[in-house]
């Protein structure tokens, strides 16, 4: 008969070992945070590793321009000539209308180059929680990821925006009430795509209306846009 071997007990690590290993672990975690988590989750990429690894794309997917009057490769950045802003393509027009169920929200934004301009007017049949803001493109280092331009709760607004940076610019509208609220936005500008993000997390790009599809007004006898 053999006596069972007593289990070997490991002495707990000393305080100095714990402190050293914790410090090393914190350094490793901080490195992972800066090189991987921040670029992928928030498009914050101070070391450029996110761009190198393609992680910033996760945080801010590139918008694919759809159905615009201009060639999809055209960059609608203005060249300033005194009071004139001269663009390499036509502007686009858009009308967006949405019924927000109680407590739902939507974000609706346009892709604009730095300095590009748009005009807008929107109205709702009740007051909305509102944030007119812009989001920089992934990895941009010239400022915060998002900037708000107007956060006052509103029922309507008319204005123009000259994009302070390249990125998507537009509205967050939230229905704070128990009744459905309809919002209608009309805009025109040198944007190349529009994206709609709903509170149920669905995202979709929306087709924009080329200028050529607009009829002359008032229509002349003989059809829309007849000369």
């Amino acid at each position, binding site marked *: 008969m053999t006596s069972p071997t007593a289990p070997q007990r490991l002495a707990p*690590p000393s305080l100095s*070992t714990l402190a050293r*290993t914790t410090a090393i672990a914190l350094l490793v975690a901080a490195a992972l945070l800066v090189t991987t988590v921040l670029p992928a*989750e928030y498009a914050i990429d101070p070391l450029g590793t996110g761009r190198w690894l393609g992680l910033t794309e996760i945080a801010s997917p590139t918008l694919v321009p759809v159905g615009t009057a201009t060639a999809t490769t055209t960059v609608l950045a203005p060249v300033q000539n005194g009071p004139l802003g001269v663009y390499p393509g036509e502007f686009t027009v858009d009308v967006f209308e949405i019924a927000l*169920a*109680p*407590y739902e929200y939507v974000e609706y934004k346009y892709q604009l180059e730095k300095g590009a301009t748009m005009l807008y007017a929107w109205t709702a049949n009740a007051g909305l929680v509102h944030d007119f803001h812009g989001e920089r493109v992934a990895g941009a280092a010239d400022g915060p990821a998002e900037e708000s331009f107007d956060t006052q709760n509103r029922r309507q607004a008319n204005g123009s925006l000259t994009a302070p940076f390249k990125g998507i610019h537009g509205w967050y509208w939230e229905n704070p009430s128990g*009744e*459905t609220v309809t919002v209608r936005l009309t805009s025109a500008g040198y944007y190349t795509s529009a994206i709609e993000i709903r509170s149920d*997390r669905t995202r979709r790009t929306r087709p924009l209306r080329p200028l050529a599809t607009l009829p002359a007004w008032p229509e002349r006898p003989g059809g829309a846009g007849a000369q």
Partner: protein
Amino acid sequence: MKRTFRVMGIVVALIISGLSLAAHDKYRIIGTVAKVTEKLVDVTQTKDGKTITMDMTDKTVVTRDKKKVGRADLKTGLSVVVDALGDSLDELDVVEIRIVPPSTKK
């Protein structure tokens, strides 16, 4: 040395799990409370009748009219707007539950 690496591994794992919690996506669930316990809340969505089960953590806040109220105020049948964080509808941690007036039918 082996022990040093083992302890280091555990600490890294703990920190990374903490970071991954901070990296979740935002969800909004709108509906009525179907069931509530100390740690869980079931909300039946208004839009599709689907019931979502969510975890309530120590950081979960319950409000009514923009004022903080206790969890005991959360009762079955109440209309709520829930903002939660997670990777999918199956694993959400509640950040805030707003008790709101019931929706008016269209």
